């Protein structure tokens, strides 16, 4: 992207380097939305390539795509639906954690809503698998929960 001769920051681009060594460019105004990046710019200056150790070349382009739309004010429900449509559960999770690392609030909240939608009406086992979470309840605690769990509303008149 060409840089203006004047010192306005609206068309300045920032270079980001992912954890696996690839470099991507974003506009300075988009970088402002990612507070982690902005902090690094403040510390290191905006002429240096900003290193992002925890974000990789698979997800960064998607994030950049989101914020490109955001700075033009074009984020609509349709865009958001399209954005997550082809993502599988793992990809959403990875994006979500990256958005958290980058402190990119808007994307973070949008994705957390999307994850909540994906968990809706699912069983405890499914949710554990989805997040890769281990069941760390003791057998006593587990059996106490299983009693209380008998109330599950999934088919209140049938067995689970």
């Amino acid at each position, binding site marked *: 992207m060409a840089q203006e001769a004047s010192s306005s920051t609206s068309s300045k681009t920032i270079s980001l380097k992912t954890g696996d060594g690839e470099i991507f460019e974003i506009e300075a105004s988009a970088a402002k939305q990612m*507070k*982690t990046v902005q902090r690094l710019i403040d510390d290191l200056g905006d002429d240096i390539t900003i290193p992002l150790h925890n974000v990789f070349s698979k997800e960064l382009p998607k994030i950049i795509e989101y914020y490109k739309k955001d700075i033009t004010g074009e984020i609509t429900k349709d865009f958001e639906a399209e954005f997550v449509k082809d993502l599988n559960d793992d990809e959403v999770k990875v994006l979500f954690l990256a958005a*958290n690392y980058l*402190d990119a*609030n808007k994307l*973070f*909240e949008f994705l*957390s*809503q999307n*994850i*909540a*939608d994906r*968990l*809706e*009406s*699912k*069983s*405890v086992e499914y*949710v*554990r698998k989805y*997040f890769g*979470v*281990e*069941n*760390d*309840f003791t057998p006593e605690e587990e059996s106490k*929960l299983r009693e*209380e*769990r*008998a*109330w*599950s*509303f*999934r*088919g*209140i*008149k049938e067995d689970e």
Partner: protein
Amino acid sequence: MKKIISGNKYSNDHLIYEILVIIFTTLSVVDLAIASMVCKSWNLASRSPKLWKKLDLSILSLKGMNEPLRPFAWMDQYSSQKITQFLKYTSSLSGGTISCIIFNYNVYLRDMHLISIAERTPNLKRLVLPISGNISKIGIETALRSWRGLKSITITSMVHYINLFDAIEKYCTNIVCLKFTYCFEQDHAKSLVKYTPNLKVLSIRSMRVNMRGLCYVLNNLEHLKVVNLRHSIILDKFDDELRIYSIFDVLSRVNISCKIIVCQRRSCLRCKNENMRNSRRLSNGSLEEIWREDEIICLAH
């Protein structure tokens, strides 16, 4: 959103807690209860007070699965017991912070449901009752004894108003908002003036309203700020003759400073819905809308 960059376990746990609470805020109460059983850290996050200001049972599933569609739902003993268990479990997660309870419109409410949730929600300020159920005099009194701070109620025909107002007289001196959903008669008006003298907000929209009862509350409730009469029919019987009145007939008989809401075609919710609705829609649908909607924001949900 807090951001912690260091890598030690304590800060990671804190991070997980905050992230989970954010995800959980959009879950329905049923899914939140499921989430609380996944593991210990999820259990902890599911107890965050941020998630428990309101217990909304009117939406059991965001995708509309397994939603009871008609009143008197889940009346059998097995289902009723399950409901009690669920109410006890969710209120134990809440740690007593629940300040608003919205019962599911169609699910049959029994004494034991009301009493067991009341015992665990001492900070309740707003109560929205369902359309079907069987609440006895003792049931409502026991419940209101736990809910002395109650300020706002959506009343349905499920509790007899005499029992309700007797209980209000004994335990709830702070009622300031009321919404009726079936009809408004002179006896209701007398109860209001006698037992809820501090009433500020009254909604009696979309129903039959007795003329003398209406004038009585307008003239005698000194603190009344707003009354919603949108789409209500004001009528009365004199010498066996039923007459319908307009809002102007009412205004000429009372001396008030409160605001009265009536239908103003363009901005009216009901008129808007009417245009979008097809003529074959079941009346039950619109009854639930009456229960749910209100131009007064604190009485809508």
